[in-house]
């Protein structure tokens, strides 16, 4: 298992797309938090005591899609470039290979989300200071914000990984990851009304605070985490069975 874990870490670190994705995420974060939320921020926003906390949640919400791509590529590249044959013959157990991917993607997602969450207020403050603006005293619910951000970032990456393990085709997995959260669940909302919060990505949005505007009291972030966890476990059971049984091509 240790060998499989080390190999997955090496796969993530020795591929150009990892650095491109992280670079894009950081560039977007610098632009949005330093320039938009800092340098260019409105005087109304500067008087909001939760401006930085909201900014953290918004940044994590926006950038988690990018971190999810790292997990998605870790699986789909195996099939796109036919390296799955190596991965599955070098290890004596397919479950170990899948478990290693889950663990490594989890660690990468948590680290990147943490960096994004920490950089967000720092860069905003830097932008505000650089423009000689005055920010109202801020109230940041550290504990709540931390678990919600980390769960969201991790959850999105896990969703990307499950989709990749189910679909395997890179384009198919990317399309699924891009259209399910917004388009599919958005359309289902018309039918399910407030029950939409029981869908995986809507539940994730509740956790980070972006579903509350639509159905503010439908479900708490904790319950939303349970809902998402249920979907994730279900998804992983199916993905695991298929990963064990399907041909590696």
């Amino acid at each position, binding site marked *: 298992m240790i060998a499989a874990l080390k*190999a997955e870490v090496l796969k993530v670190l*020795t591929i150009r797309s990892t650095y491109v994705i992280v670079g894009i995420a950081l560039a977007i974060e610098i632009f949005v938090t330093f320039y938009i939320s800092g340098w260019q921020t409105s005087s109304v926003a500067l008087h909001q005591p939760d401006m930085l906390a909201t900014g953290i949640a918004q940044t994590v919400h926006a950038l988690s899609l990018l971190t999810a791509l790292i997990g998605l590529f870790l699986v789909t590249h195996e099939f796109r470039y036919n390296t799955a044959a*190596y991965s599955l*013959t070098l290890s004596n157990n397919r479950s170990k290979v899948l478990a290693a991917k889950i663990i490594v993607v989890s660690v990468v997602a948590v680290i990147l989300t943490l960096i994004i969450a920490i950089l967000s207020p720092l860069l905003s403050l830097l932008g505000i200071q650089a423009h000689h603006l005055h920010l109202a005293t801020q109230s940041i619910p550290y504990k709540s914000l931390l678990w919600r951000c980390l769960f969201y970032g991790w959850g999105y990456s896990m969703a990307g990984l499950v989709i990749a393990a189910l679909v395997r085709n890179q384009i198919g997995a990317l399309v699924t990851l891009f259209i399910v959260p917004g388009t599919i669940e958005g359309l289902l909302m018309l039918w399910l009304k407030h029950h939409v919060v029981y869908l995986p990505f809507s539940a994730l949005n509740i956790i980070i605070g972006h579903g509350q505007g639509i159905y503010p009291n439908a479900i708490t972030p904790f319950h939303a985490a349970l809902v998402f966890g249920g979907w994730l476990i279900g998804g992983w059971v199916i993905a695991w069975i298929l990963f064990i049984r*399907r041909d590696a091509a």
Partner: protein
Amino acid sequence: MIKVSRLTKTFKKKLAVDDISFEVETGKITGFLGPNGAGKSTTMRLMLGLASGKGSTLFDNKPLHNYNQPSRLVGILLEAKAFHPTRSARNHLRVLATAGNIPLKRVDEVLDVVGLKSEAKKGPGKFSLGMSQRLGIAAALLAQPKYLILDEPANGLDPEGIAWLRQFLKSYADQGNGVFVSSHLLSEMSQMADNVIVIGKGKLLASTSMKQLIAGNVRSSIFVRVTKQTTLERILKERGLTFEKVDNGLKLVGPTTDEIGQLAFDGGVPILELATRGGSLEEAFLEITAGSEEFEARPGGES
């Protein structure tokens, strides 16, 4: 020994591999032949547990995945371009070495063996087919495994590369290892393989030694070239012997060189060339696989 027993695989309703059994011995190169679409690659994938199907493959009496380190037992090359195009050749091998618990010093050693040391830092996406094959061979050799399973390793290699591969695999087998290799290059295979497995339309057509395969399926012939060919043709017809005109001479199956020499001498026909021609692997292959082609092309000129 690799013991393959009753491998069967169906794709939807089509039988791709049909109840195939054979053995791959250590100390020998076993060639794996068959027309396009015969099921060679699928058989190899079934052997390695990469495709699901019926039957079993035992490596030294145990399934591959019952070993703690399968990498020590078998090295594979199933596709030439099985790598991420922008991950450098060295990093590609480092990933595989790490996954297989293989010392990282082997990475540079195998790169040196296949002649890719100078290209180690480059992304293999722009490698030629031959260079990609070399990288694939390097990957197969990483753990110095007891068995090599190679699918068309000579594809894309230049003549020098093919000669190197032949010598390398022979020497690898001579060290007590087993080599199972498929190839379309029949002349190359005839020089390299000790044993041959032939399949067609998913069925096992032959599993024997190279010598027996050729001897059992192609009758050796004699070739004679003379100055007065029409005279010799008349003499042969009078004796009821059949012949075929080839290469400015005649090919006969049945009589010996002594008999033909005597007939020519008696008829006053000077002989320029008289020799026995042994059967080739290509002739044996075509004989065995006749009617087993998945894709049959029209004769040349027709469109």
